[in-house]
């Protein structure tokens, strides 16, 4: 089984420091090998218990917009900011 750890880190939007990559990759492969040891389970006769769901009712959460935005890195005109994505 071939696993491309760099591709996985790209998918997860994560970078691994280059000087640690080799050991990280080796440990990652060990973990994948460990978790792959699962017995075959034919569980066709075991049905998961369906979860009871409540109605999805909108209600006032008691938190205002200013409070909700107060943890953002930057807020301009009541909007979150992000790097420019469209070239002018």
């Amino acid at each position, binding site marked *: 089984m071939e696993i491309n750890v760099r591709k996985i880190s790209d998918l997860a939007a994560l970078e691994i420091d280059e000087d640690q990559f080799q050991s990280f990759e080796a440990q990652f492969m060990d973990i994948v090998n460990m978790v792959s040891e*699962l*017995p075959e389970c034919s*569980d066709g006769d075991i049905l998961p218990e369906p979860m009871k769901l409540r109605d999805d009712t909108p209600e006032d959460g008691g938190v205002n917009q200013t409070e909700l935005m107060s943890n953002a*890195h930057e807020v301009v005109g009541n909007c979150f900011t992000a790097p420019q994505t469209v070239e002018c």
Partner: protein
Amino acid sequence: MKLCDHTALELAEMLRKRQCSAKEIYLDTLQRAKEKQDSINAYITFNDEAEKAAEAVDNMLADGKELTLIAGIPIAVKDNISTKGLRTTCASKMLSDYISPYDAFAVERLKSAGAVIIGKSNMDEFAMGSASDTGYYGAVRNPVNTSYSAGGSSGGSAASISYGGALLALGSDTGGSVRQPASLCGVVGFCPSYGAVSRYGLIAFASSLDRIGAIGRTVSDTFILHNIINVADPKDVTMSDIFCSFNLKGELKGVKVGVVKELFDCFMDDDVRSSVMAAIKLMEKNGAVIKEISIPSIRSAVNAYYIISSAEASSNLARYDGIRYGYRSDGSGSLAEMYRKSRSEGFGTEVKRRIMLGTFVLSEGFCDDYYKRAAALRRRLCAEFNEAFEQCDIIAAPVYPQAGIKLGESKDPIDVYSADVFTVPSSMAGLPSISIPCGKNKEGLPVGLQLIGNRFCDNMVFDAAYGYELVGGGIND
């Protein structure tokens, strides 16, 4: 003996008899917490509003108002449980400045019961770890021997209870994170049935496994805290509506205690094995009926757990993008680069490892071989537990294979993960379980006994643990 060396129930009685004030209890406990902070590192943030909360309880007492048993009791809250106006960091650089605009449901319950939240306790980053050594704020040391870890991930909560820096604590348990540090610090840690305590405001790691648990010095203390937070909350869709009032009796006579042969075939230190077996024998001597049982899938649970919990973590932690909250890297160019750099600089190595494992097991071509097989094993395990509980009332097991985790030693992740073998099976099945002290190893490090009950039989777990405590177990000297 200082006030903080009493149990919570003793202090509740002393408060009512006017033998001390809530403010005196708080100041005494805070002093102990601050004295030990440099050596143990149990706290990330102390609560500046705590003294006012203690004074409010004293005023209520003076007015003759009726109080709950936890009113005026200093309580530590794990730093992944949201507290309005007090930062909630998850021990991560990613959330080092995050101040929640709302309280978790469990915290709301504590506040309305008059508890004094002394501070936010240290932990593994995003609750991912077993030694409270993966966090941004440094490792939590074991008060019994500071060369050792307090265990994880709720290490700060368990350690603070052990040394008197809090009387009660909230932790969170995804695969053993309340029970393991409780075992290693020699205190009592309870993980409720999945659905018994609202997860609202608990910062998500693996949503199908996360639970908020109570930690105390005795079973009775832990029980009173659990009773405060074991209340229906419509904000958590997975909450159950099964609640019943219950008084601890501690009856062991006729209680059928199952011993899972597959678990006792696993590696564990000799001192752990002998302490747990001695505890089981003590229960038998006092009327419990011991039965050997088999749960064939139980040893594979740990592999399935790391697949499922990492898959859920990769999804839950995708929200940290540096936009709405959390760390943002300076000097990023494009949007994609900002996401990548913010996440790479904001998360530590263990969190990255889990996110990547989750990304892998959910990726095209691997999902069937990993995630779906793990989910199937989980269903099989639940069915096997159901069969087991037709033969017994309670399952007894170790909590952790060792009595101590030495700090500073290089550890292979697969060894760390494999050591969760005793706690993750009940996590996967959503079962209630408790860790209660049952002995010490040759170096004096505590060992815990785990008691597991059937789903929503939380009271039975508490009662069996209380029974064990009454006949001489559970001593933490």
